[in-house]
């Protein structure tokens, strides 16, 4: 069980190897990819700012919660920092369990909590040359509609 912040591309195959377990019958993963649109605006790329030490600490707290709540064997989460281009993997969550229900539920729990709790901020860059911090009241006002999230 571990949570890490990475400044270079995430390698899902390497993370999957960490989770190999002959007792496991189910392996569920979530990958967050950089989309080409958000809230109707064409996106060209984005930048993640991360407070690494606190993000890792809070991420491992979330993984420990998942291991306590669900019948899973292990779980891992890696999140990117820095500049990302379209289709890059922004976040990877993997969970192994004996039976599939627990793996699905734990994976969903982890990504929901990671998005809500880790000190990570996303700045989007748009085709028109503008940029904005996602979920920021000032930035939302600037283009006059509510934010939605992946």
């Amino acid at each position, binding site marked *: 069980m571990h949570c890490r912040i990475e400044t270079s591309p995430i390698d899902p195959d390497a993370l999957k190897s960490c989770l190999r377990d002959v007792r496991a019958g189910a392996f569920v993963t979530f990958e967050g990819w950089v989309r080409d649109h958000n809230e109707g605006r064409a996106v060209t790329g984005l930048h993640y700012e991360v407070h690494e030490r606190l993000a890792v600490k809070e991420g491992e707290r979330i993984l420990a919660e998942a291991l306590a709540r669900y019948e899973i064997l292990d779980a891992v989460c890696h999140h990117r920092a820095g500049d990302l281009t379209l289709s890059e993997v922004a976040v990877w969550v993997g969970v192994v369990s004996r039976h599939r229900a627990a793996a699905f539920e734990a994976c969903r729990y982890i990504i929901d909590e990671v998005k809500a709790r880790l000190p990570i901020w996303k700045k989007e860059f748009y085709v028109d040359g503008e940029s904005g911090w*996602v979920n920021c009241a000032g930035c939302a006002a600037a283009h006059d509609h509510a934010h939605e999230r992946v």
Partner: protein
Amino acid sequence: MKRVAVEYFAVFREQAGTAGEPLDTDAATVGELFIECARRHGFADPRERCKVAVNDELASWEAALTDGDQVLFFPPVAGG
């Protein structure tokens, strides 16, 4: 009067025009200090959606402010 070190992240850093600053304050809690800083720098995000860490631990807005504290103000997060 106590002296604390404040750090700003993401949009707060851009709005404050600095990653951090020393501040002399009479604020009793970190929540009061946030209101002072938000007023001075024009932070638009409501405090309920923001977070604070004191000396590298996430803290509540009611946490007492102590001379020498390092206070980190986090705007609304957007991981993933």
